[in-house]
């Protein structure tokens, strides 16, 4: 019996490796030939999608693995993007600082190498993830969700309003208000092909994003199978039991927040460069829900499911919607399809939660949890997944 199971396990492992290899091969081939064979809109949409997948994977750590419903994920996108904007643009005109940056950047402002800023941004957002997560440690369920939502609303507003000092302290302009920080430095490495990147040729962006995605995926798989990952799942399923088994709740939850946030900042910093602007308009609650939608549709806690869910939703958002824009006018209605995209995402969320709460590609254990209590028939189930009564 165990021999059979072992063999089966090996087969599953093999399958998984083949899957990854095929995925990488397809992506690399697409990266090389995609820009010429498809239109550039599609190619750019794929690059943004890759960044969104990273965010989905980051939120999956918090929501899917650790079971902490975070509704303010956009805050980490904002922080990561602003770190990129501060350290890699001419925004702080009084400073003249260059570090491993291209000679093409202007003298004014702080210009640190893009790849370095990526690391700084991830570390900085991780710190903020822990800071914002700290007050929520005692909270459960919907209270936790609301507090994170409030943080997600506060952070972008503070950025937006900090045009003359932070909270009115000093006179430094941190965000350039609603105009945002633009332009942002391009990635730069002193090797041919990466020493003069412009937005005209998108290939380098694609491969940078793809490399970042591979790092993120590797991190996710390793974390899921690690001691920490198992502790997250234990906390998700029963906090009290996990604590009794010796899981340090504070440490485990803070790591979930920090790593989840770091991935959001990582991807956010990339998006700042790719979009060439850091603008507070994009940091709205709808974006948090958009990322949450990716996680829910794919299947909370399942890495492959989240990747597919994120690809589907992000490509729909970035590319599919534009194709559908003419649809309402064909049936005699007068509106842009993309203007109601959040309504559409809302509908997805609603339909998913009612019809198939475990997502399209569910995590098996998660599915059991989500259907728990369905057979009991009472008004409120005895065992709420997210509230353990102490």
């Amino acid at each position: 019996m165990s021999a059979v199971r072992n063999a089966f396990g090996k087969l599953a492992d093999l399958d998984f490796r083949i899957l990854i290899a095929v995925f990488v091969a397809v992506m690399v081939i697409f990266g090389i030939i995609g820009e010429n064979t498809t239109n550039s809109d599609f190619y750019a949409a794929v690059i943004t999608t890759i960044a969104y997948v990273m965010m989905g994977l980051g939120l999956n750590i918090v929501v899917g693995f650790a079971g902490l419903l975070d509704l303010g994920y956009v805050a980490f996108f904002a922080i990561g993007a602003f770190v990129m904007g501060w350290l890699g643009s001419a925004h702080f005109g009084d400073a003249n600082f260059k570090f491993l940056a291209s000679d093409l950047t202007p003298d004014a402002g702080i210009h640190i190498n893009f790849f370095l800023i990526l690391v700084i941004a991830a570390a900085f957002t991780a710190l903020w993830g822990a800071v914002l997560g700290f007050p929520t440690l005692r909270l459960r369920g919907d209270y936790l969700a609301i507090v994170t939502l409030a943080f997600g609303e506060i952070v972008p507003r503070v950025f937006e309003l900090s045009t003359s000092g932070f909270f009115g302290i000093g006179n430094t302009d941190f965000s350039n208000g609603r105009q945002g920080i633009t332009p942002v430095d391009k990635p730069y490495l002193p090797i041919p092909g990466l020493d003069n990147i412009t937005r005209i040729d998108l290939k380098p962006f694609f491969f940078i994003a793809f490399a970042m995605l591979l790092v993120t995926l590797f991190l996710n798989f390793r974390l899921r199978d690690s001691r920490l990952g198992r502790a997250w799942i234990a906390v998700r399923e029963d906090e009290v039991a996990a604590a009794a088994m010796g899981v340090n709740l504070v440490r485990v939850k803070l790591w979930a927040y920090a790593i989840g946030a770091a991935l959001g900042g990582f991807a956010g910093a990339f998006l700042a460069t790719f979009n060439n602007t850091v603008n507070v308009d994009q940091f709205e609650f709808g974006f948090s829900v958009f990322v949450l939608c990716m996680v829910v549709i794919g299947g909370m806690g399942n890495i492959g499911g989240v990747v597919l869910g994120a690809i589907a939703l992000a490509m729909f958002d970035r590319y599919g919607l534009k194709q559908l824009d003419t649809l309402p006018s064909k049936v005699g209605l007068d509106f842009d399809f993309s203007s109601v995209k959040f309504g559409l995402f809302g509908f997805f969320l609603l339909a998913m939660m009612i019809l198939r709460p475990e997502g399209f590609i569910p995590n098996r254990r998660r599915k059991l949890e989500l259907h728990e209590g369905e057979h009991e028939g009472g008004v409120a189930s005895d065992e709420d997944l997210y509230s353990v009564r102490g």
Partner: protein
Amino acid sequence: MEAASITPSPPAKSPGSVIWDNILWVIFGATLVILAIVDLTDDGNISLLANNIKDGISVGTIWALIALGYTLVYGIIELINFAHGEVFMIGSFVAVSLFVSLGIVEGTGLFGLVLGILLVLLIAMVACAVLNAMIERVAYRQLRGAPKLAPLITAIGMSFILQNVGLLWRPTPDSAPDLLGSQIELVNLFGVEIVRSDVFAVAVTAPLLFALLWFVGHTRYGKAMRATAQDPDAARLMGIDVDKTIALTFILGGLLAGAAGLIYALYNLTVSFNQGFTAGLIAFTSAVMGGIGNLKGAVIGGLLIGFVQQTVESRAPQDGSAWAPVAVFAILILVMVFRPQGLFGEETREG
């Protein structure tokens, strides 16, 4: 949920913990006092403080009406009805559209005006009540037994759907007809200008609040609601139709949201599809502040939040109206983290 466990008595408090338990009250009170003193000394008169209190009350009544919807629903099924702010927005839209289609304008005579506003108020309230009940039927009822996360996510989904309905209805901010002559001064007490819209807000809200308190406290239906809130299973055993009672709760919340929508339209004179989200969050803060599930608490919370908002708006060195939500959300976080049972200390299930 309550059936299995008798609420445990609170652990004996050590003497020192009294101040710590009330730390939020202390901080909050101290901040208000300091702000009040600054108000007083800055201008050398009490007008700014008094003006803030007055504006706080009239804005606060709107928040209180919305907050009651949150608190009623949370009290009975422990769900944050995220879509409630959007119901309020739809209420505003219905009111403004009705004013236009019924031909009620600023020039309408007094009798027609009073009758018209009353009629529109009634229709907006009923429309929102129906909408709220429909939301409950579509989005929440199937998920009664599911983990808490599920209905919360459908609530968010519902809120986005409604917001986009609003977006299609009125893509840009619209102005409401200034039926009241809202800025016309009625009384001037020591520099505090009480304008018509202030009086209107309070005059519409107060009867509704008392009616609600009476309904929940003194009718059979109210009793059924309280029983269901305490223990749905036991209530069902006692012959209460739990589904109907929950629907009734949503209807009550919708009625109040509709009224709030109309008051907001006539008070603010602008309506926009995205007013519901921020308003909903502010109102939710009020509900949490008063202790969620506590009706009187929600009203007091609404008035306090209104005052805080006005104070921040008038005191912030710049962008006052943009800082005010930041301050309110910060209060939301503080209350939820340090005093989840609200300022008045009634234990909640999350606490």
